[in-house]
């Protein structure tokens, strides 16, 4: 490990553009960062901050524009080239970067174990343990270097990754939403380490959705929106409200179909619900007949966990779920479905559809009993007939009902995932990020479909981190932060700013 000097160093990203098929993820972005500073990078989902950081850390190659370090052009095209220049990144999903059954020391020294062995064949445990220990000491963190990484807490794993990053000659450290999974004390500890690093002349880029904490730790803030930089300011010059406004500040071109529906009596109620692992805590909510209830909150706020717990897909610690005033059993999704709940899950390809099965068997998967005779033989004609009807009704673009779902576009796959539940005829429909990866046309179709569901007197729970969608489709919305519902808002009387304010921990 080299001792870092006090020489200032500066990265300039100039005119960076990056395009994904159909989306301009970054357009002409200029971004600067100096060593010794803690710089916040903020933006709504899809604003391009992660993309920008992936460009800087060499994870993406297909960008245009140039990166200069101390006025010298650096062609960073791979993680290795970024590392050589002293740029390290710690991603939010710590487990993807760690090897669980190796020790802390081995994980910290992984880079040198892989790249600096040259001709050596033997591993010198003493050297590895001692160097790892030294790195941790530099961070002021106490973890036994001989512990197996699997046994660490999430916060400790993060420290191991930070330690690995600075075990090399690290000048710039990117932290991608490091605090999202941490408790308050763990966050404090992280901040202490981050400050210490900054004092040691490391430049830190700090990505976070939790706005209040930025004021605690950052000196500068850059706000991104739609693949562009909105502004860079000193943190003292802005407030949480300013940031929210700058993050949004765009006109929505999406129009929402919202049929006026008379709200009926309470259909569905959740009381004091906490799941086994405290991913969500003490949830109280209700849905009336004909009502679309939004669940807003940022990524990681617990929306998906809430949807899954209500649906019986995550184990419940305590709490009650009532449908039409009756206590219902949600021990398993099987029970939930029998009771009249339906979930369109977030991870469509992993959880929502059977990609290798044809469209018709996907559509009938949740309601196959309706298409069987007394000996449970499938009435194939009836099944295909119902599938055809659903395909026309939802406008699913497929050559036939026998097409494998894998060959449909994302939006059409989503329609299949929704259509499955329309055939099953549930009472309460839970949508978890239904428009993720869906094109505009299909988005409209899904909104229209939700409109029709509530007209039939069903209840809809609509979880999304897209505030515009919540505003467009819901009657009422609950805002989640850190696994809890922090606010209930009437949609007609709220604004994007207000929802985002509560979503980012404002009180």
């Amino acid at each position: 490990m080299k001792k870092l000097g006090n020489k200032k160093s500066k990265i300039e990203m100039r005119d960076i553009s990056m395009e994904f098929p159909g989306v301009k993820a970054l357009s002409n972005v200029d971004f600067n960062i100096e060593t010794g500073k803690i710089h916040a990078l903020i933006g709504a989902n899809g604003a391009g901050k992660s993309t920008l950081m992936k460009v800087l850390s060499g994870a993406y190659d297909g960008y245009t524009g140039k990166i200069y370090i101390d006025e010298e052009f650096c062609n960073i095209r791979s993680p290795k080239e970024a590392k050589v220049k002293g740029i390290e990144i710690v991603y939010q999903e710590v487990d993807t970067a760690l090897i669980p059954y190796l020790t802390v020391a081995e994980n910290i020294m992984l880079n040198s174990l892989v790249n600096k062995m040259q001709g050596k064949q033997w591993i010198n445990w003493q050297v590895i343990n001692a160097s790892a220990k030294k790195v941790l000491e530099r961070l002021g963190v106490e973890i036994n270097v001989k512990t197996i990484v699997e046994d660490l807490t999430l916060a400790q794993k993060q420290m191991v990754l930070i330690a690995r990053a600075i075990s090399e000659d690290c000048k710039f450290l990117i932290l991608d939403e490091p605090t999202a999974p941490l408790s308050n004390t763990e966050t404090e500890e992280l901040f202490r380490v981050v400050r210490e690093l900054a004092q040691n002349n490391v430049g830190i880029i700090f990505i976070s959705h939790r706005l209040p904490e930025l004021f605690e730790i950052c000196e500068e803030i850059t706000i991104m929106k739609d693949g562009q930089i909105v502004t860079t300011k000193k943190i003292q010059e802005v407030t949480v409200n300013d940031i929210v406004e700058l993050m949004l500040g765009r006109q929505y071109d999406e129009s929402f179909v919202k049929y006026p529906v008379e709200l009926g009596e309470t259909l569905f109620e959740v009381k004091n619900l906490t799941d086994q692992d405290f991913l969500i805590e003490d949830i109280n909510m209700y849905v009336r007949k004909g009502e679309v209830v939004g669940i807003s909150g940022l990524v990681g706020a617990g929306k998906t966990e809430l949807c899954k717990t209500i649906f019986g897909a995550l184990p419940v610690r305590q709490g009650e779920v009532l449908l039409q005033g009756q206590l219902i059993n949600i021990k398993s999704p099987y029970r939930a479905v029998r009771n009249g709940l339906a979930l369109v899950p977030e991870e469509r390809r992993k959880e929502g559809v059977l990609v290798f099965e044809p469209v018709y068997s996907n559509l009938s998967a949740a309601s196959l009993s309706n298409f069987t005779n007394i000996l449970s033989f499938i009435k194939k004609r009836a099944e295909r007939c119902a599938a055809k009807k659903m395909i026309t009704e939802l406008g699913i673009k497929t050559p036939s009902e026998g097409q494998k779902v894998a060959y449909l576009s994302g939006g059409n796959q989503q329609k299949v995932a929704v259509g499955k539940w329309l055939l099953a005829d549930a009472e309460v429909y839970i949508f978890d990020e239904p428009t993720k990866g869906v094109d505009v046309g299909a988005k409209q179709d899904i909104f229209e479909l939700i409109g029709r569901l509530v007209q039939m007197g069903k209840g809809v729970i609509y979880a999304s981190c897209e505030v515009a969608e919540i505003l467009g489709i819901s009657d009422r919305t609950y805002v989640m932060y850190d696994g809890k519902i922090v606010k209930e808002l009437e949609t007609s009387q709220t604004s994007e700013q207000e929802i985002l304010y509560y979503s980012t921990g404002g009180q």
Partner: protein
Amino acid sequence: MEAKMKTSEVKVNVKQENKGSKALDFIEKWGTIITIVFLIVFFSVAMPEAFPTKTNVITILRSISIVTVIAIGITVSLTVGGFDLSVGSVATFADTMVMSMFVWYSMPVFPAIIISLLAVLSVAIINSLLIVKLKIPDMLATLSCMFIFEGVAMTYAGGGSISQGMSKLDGTPTTGTILPLFSKVGQAPYIIIIMLVVVVAVHIFLNYTKHGRYLYVVGGNMEAARLSGIPVQRYRTIAYFLSAILAGIGGILLASRIGSAQINAGAGYLMPSVAAAYIGYSFAGAGRANAIGTFFGAVLVGVLENGLVMMSVPYYSLNIVKGAVLAIALALTYFRKKD
């Protein structure tokens, strides 16, 4: 509009990709049949006297019956994305049980069979307990069960074989006989008929009933199945019960064929059964474990074995060929798998 354009572009791409590999598609779909036909033609030309005769056809069918029935069991376990390695031991266990019923306890045919099949269910119970409740990966759980019940069968038989006229573990002489009705089961045409009935029944069950569909859905995507409200664990359990029962039937057929219970008699059926099930995987473009495909897989293995034996390839070298066939079948299954 732009988005819609993209969709159609994607579709075109998929089609082109398919076009480029049409030949491979064809081989994947009909490779089993082509190979069987090729083998039959080859052996018929090589041995026109012995191979293409009626007796030999019956010999082949009879010899693959047990493999097929056991392989159908494996097929059912494959439908839920599992893998039952314990089928060989289950067959041994059923063989031992049914023989002891006759020789030790002089039982009539049907009670003997029913008791043996009930005994075999204990394997299914342990398998599903290990897999569903204790969350052990399928192959490892059934591997343990394979050992356990190999041992149970051997312990039950006192470490030896059971055959007519042999005394019991404690030395008491036995008077029980293997009834003629039971011996008939293992002869042609009955054993062939039983095999075909099993194949057709399981084919209908898997393709035309709700339960069969659910098994495939569970195997296709367990999480999606669970979130569709399918009781996933129940269907996994059902699959292991079916595979145990089928392996048990295989064991009883084996007992009838050889008229005794030998140590580890069923063990040799595991590999050809696995091969049959995997050869059948891509049959007619199914792309998943299926009963008809498994049957043809067993035919392929049977024809190959029969022909090679006739060409005086020593029996101890056959495994080389059978193993290679399995490797080819697996390559065809996995090589083109995406995602």
